[in-house]
C-alpha cells in the first residue's frame, strides 16, 4: 500500500551546481586578466575571485560543492596570476600569504552564506507547515461528522509530512466497527473506507498492523476509548525532519480535539434522550401506582364496610373477607412490580444512606407480627451498633419477602428465625425455617422471575414468584449476594451479604 518516493527536485539543483561554479570562476579570470593588462596589483584580482566565491555560494545549494569551488577559485588565481604563471607553484612568499588569506576568507564566506540560506529555508518551511496546519484546523473545525474530520486530517497530515498516511478509526462509539481512510502522497489520492478490513474491530486491525511491522503508529483516545490510529510507513517515519515531526504532532492534537468535540456533542444528545426516557418512565410508574392504589382503596374499604354491616355468620361476611384478601394480594403484587421496574435503573432509584441494622430489623419484626398473628420469630442481631449504607425501605422488603416465603412453607409450630451477623467486610442477613425446604430441582432457579416450584401449575394463585426475584435484584443493586440452601435437619435457609462500604454498582 505504500510506494517508494524519491525527490524529483534534487536533479535540478545538482545541474545548477555544475555550471554555476565554472561560470563565475571564468568570469573572475576574465576580469582578472583585464586588471592585469592595465597593471593593477594582484590583490585586486584576489578580491574579484572572492566576489566570485560569494556569488557561487549564494547560488549553490550544496555546502560541500561551494567549498570545492572556493578552492577552485583560489587555484585558478594561483594558476593564472601568480608567478610562475600557468603553473600551480608559488615562488613569492607574499603570494603564499595572499592565497592563504583568500582560502580562509572564501571558506568563511561560504559557511556564512550557507547558514543564512539554511535558516531562511527552515523559516519558509515552518511558515508553509503552519499555513497547512492552519488550513487543517480551520477545515476540521467546520467538519460535522467523524468521517469528514478523518478525511481532512488524513489529507492534511499527508501533505504536511509528505508521507503516506493510513488512518483506522471508529465512526460510532456504540458500534465499534473499524473504518479506514488513507492518503498516498505521490499520487495525491485519498481512499476512504478501503473495503479490505470490513467488519473488523479497531483493536483487531491495530494488532494486525503491529504484526506486519514497518509502520509507526499514533493512537488517539477520546474518553479513554481508542478512537483512531494513524499509521505512517516506518521508513518514511524515520526520515521525518524535526519540523515535520513537530507539525505532525500538532496535527494529531488538532485531530484529537476535533474528535473530542464531535463525541461530546454525541454524548450530550444521548444523555438528553436518556433523560427523556427516564422522565417518561417515572411519570408512567407514578401514574400506574396512583391509578391502582385508588381503586384498591375503594375495593378494600367498601368490602370492610360490607363486613361491618353483615353478621359474621352470614355468608356475605365471608365473601367480603375474601374480596379483601384478594385485594391485599393484588396490592402486594403491585408493590413488587413497581419496585422491580424501579430497580431496573438501580443507580437512579437506589437511595442509599447509612442506616442502623437494628432499626431495619425492628421494622421488619413489627410488620411480621402484623402479618402473621401469633407466629413466633426468633431474632438474633449483633449487640453493638452496625451501620450499613442501604436503601432501608428496599432491604425491609427483601426481608419481608423472605419471611413471607418462610411462612408459606411452614406450619404454625415450625420455627422461623432471622439472624444478622457482622462479617469481615459485610453484614449477613439470614432467614431460616424448619419447614418443607426447597426441592433440589428448584434450587438453581429459585431467584428467577416468574419461577414457581414445578408441582404447582403455572397460573396457580399467589405463586407469581416475584418475591424472590425482587430480593435478588435489590441485593444485587446493593453490591451484595443472595443464596438459598436446605438446612441440615430440615427446612430452608436464605441468606444475603451486604457490603459495609458504599461503592457504585451497576
Amino acid at each position, binding site marked *: 500500500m505504500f510506494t517508494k518516493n524519491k525527490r524529483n527536485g534534487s536533479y535540478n539543483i545538482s545541474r545548477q551546481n555544475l555550471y554555476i561554479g565554472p561560470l563565475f570562476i571564468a568570469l573572475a579570470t576574465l576580469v582578472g586578466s583585464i586588471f592585469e593588462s592595465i597593471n593593477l596589483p594582484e590583490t585586486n584580482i584576489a578580491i574579484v575571485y572572492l566576489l566570485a566565491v560569494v556569488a557561487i555560494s549564494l547560488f549553490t545549494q550544496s555546502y560541500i560543492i561551494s567549498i570545492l569551488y572556493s578552492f577552485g577559485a583560489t587555484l585558478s588565481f594561483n594558476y593564472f596570476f601568480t608567478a610562475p604563471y600557468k603553473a600551480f607553484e608559488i615562488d613569492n612568499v607574499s603570494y603564499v600569504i595572499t592565497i592563504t588569506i583568500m582560502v580562509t576568507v572564501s571558506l568563511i564566506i561560504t559557511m556564512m552564506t550557507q547558514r543564512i540560506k539554511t535558516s531562511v529555508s527552515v523559516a519558509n518551511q515552518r511558515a508553509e507547515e503552519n499555513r497547512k496546519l492552519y488550513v487543517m484546523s480551520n477545515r476540521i473545525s467546520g467538519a460535522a461528522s467523524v468521517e469528514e474530520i478523518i478525511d481532512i486530517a488524513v489529507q492534511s497530515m499527508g501533505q504536511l509530512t509528505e508521507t503516506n498516511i493510513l488512518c483506522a478509526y471508529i465512526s460510532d462509539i456504540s458500534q465499534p466497527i473499524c473504518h479506514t481512510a488513507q492518503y498516498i502522497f505521490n499520487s495525491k489520492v485519498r481512499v476512504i473506507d478501503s473495503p479490505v478490513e470490513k467488519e473488523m474491530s479497531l483493536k483487531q486491525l491495530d494488532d494486525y498492523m503491529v504484526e506486519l511491522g514497518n509502520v509507526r503508529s499514533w493512537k488517539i483516545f477520546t474518553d479513554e476509548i481508542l478512537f483512531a490510529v494513524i499509521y505512517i510507513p516506518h521508513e518514511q517515519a524515520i526520515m521525518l525532519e524535526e519540523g515535520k515531526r513537530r507539525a505532525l504532532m500538532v496535527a494529531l492534537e488538532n485531530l484529537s480535539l476535533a474528535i473530542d468535540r464531535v463525541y461530546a456533542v454525541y454524548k450530550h444528545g444521548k444523555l438528553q434522550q436518556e433523560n427523556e426516557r427516564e422522565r417518561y418512565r417515572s411519570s408512567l410508574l407514578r401514574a400506574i401506582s396512583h391509578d391502582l392504589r385508588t381503586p384498591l*382503596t*375503594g*375495593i378494600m*374499604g367498601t368490602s*370492610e364496610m360490607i363486613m*361491618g354491616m353483615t353478621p359474621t355468620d352470614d355468608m356475605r361476611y365471608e365473601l367480603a373477607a375474601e374480596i379483601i384478601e384478594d385485594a391485599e394480594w393484588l396490592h402486594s403484587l403491585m408493590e413488587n412490580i413497581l419496585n422491580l421496574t424501579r430497580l431496573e435503573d438501580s443507580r437512579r432509584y437506589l*437511595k442509599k444512606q447509612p442506616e442502623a441494622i437494628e432499626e431495619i430489623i425492628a421494622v421488619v419484626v413489627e410488620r411480621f407480627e402484623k402479618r402473621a398473628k401469633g407466629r413466633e420469630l426468633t431474632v438474633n442481631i449483633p449487640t453493638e451498633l452496625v*451501620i450499613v449504607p442501604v436503601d432501608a425501605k428496599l432491604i425491609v422488603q427483601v426481608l419481608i419477602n423472605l419471611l413471607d416465603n418462610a411462612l408459606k412453607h411452614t406450619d404454625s409450630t415450625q420455627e422461623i428465625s432471622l439472624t444478622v451477623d457482622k462479617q469481615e467486610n459485610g453484614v449477613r442477613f439470614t432467614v431460616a425455617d424448619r419447614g418443607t425446604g426447597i426441592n433440589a430441582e428448584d434450587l438453581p432457579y429459585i431467584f428467577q422471575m416468574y419461577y414457581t416450584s414445578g408441582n404447582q401449575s403455572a397460573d396457580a394463585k399467589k405463586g407469581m414468584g416475584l418475591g424472590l426475584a425482587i430480593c435478588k435484584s435489590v441485593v444485587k443493586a446493593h453490591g451484595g449476594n443472595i443464596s438459598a440452601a436446605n438446612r441440615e435437619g430440615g427446612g430452608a435457609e436464605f441468606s444475603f451479604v451486604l457490603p459495609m462500604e458504599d461503592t457504585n454498582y451497576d
Partner: protein
Amino acid sequence: MTNKETILIVEDDFQIRNFISYSLKNEGYICKIVSTGSRAINTIANETVDLVILDLGLPDIDGIDVIRMLREWSDIPIIVVSARDQDREKAYALDLGADDYLTKPFSSTELLARIRVAMRHMKRRESVKKQSVIQVGGLSVDFEKRIVNLDGNEIHLTPMEYSLMSLLIKNRGKVVTTASVIKELWGPGYGQDTQALRTLMAGLRRKIETNPAKPRYIMTEIGVGYRMVEE
C-alpha cells in the same frame, strides 16, 4: 355514639369518600365531605371542624398546597391520605405540618386509630399549654429538672440524647421526620447526613429499650423518621 367531633373528608373519589364516612359515622363522628381544596379551606374557615382527612390528589389545588395554606392560620389536625407512595412526599407533608400520613390502600381500622391519636394530640395541646413532666409508660421526662426516669430509676443521658428525647416525647404519637430532627439538633446547616443521627439514636435506645429489635418507646418509620409511642 360517644364521639361528637366533626371530621372533614377532602377526597374526590366517590367510593373512598363513602367508606370513610361510613366507618367514621359508625364510630360516632360527625362527617362533612368536600371534593376540592378550595371548598375544604372555605369549610374549615367558616364552620366547626375538629380534624381533616386530606387527599393530596385533588382536582383543583394540590393537597400539599392545602396543608401549607391551612397551616398559615390554623393548627387543626390534618391526616393525609394519599396514593403517592414516595418517602420524599411523605416527609414533605409531615414537615409542612400534617399530623399523619397514610398511603393508599389502607384499612378503616388503621385510619380510625390514627384519628384517635390526632384527636388526643389536639386535646392535649388545648388543655395544658406547657407540661413540666411528660409520662409515657414507664418513661418520664421532667423538663424543669432535666431528669429522665425509666421505671422509677433515673437514667443519665448526654445533652444531645436529652434533646432528642425531649423532641420526640413532646411530639409523642406523631412522626418526626429525619430532616426535622437533624435541623432541630444540629442546626439547619447540617444537611442530610443521617449517620450521626442513627448513632445518637442507637445510644439513646440502648439506655431506654430492653430489646432494640423490638423497641417499646421509640418506633422507626423507615425512610421517614421516628415516632415516640403514646403510652
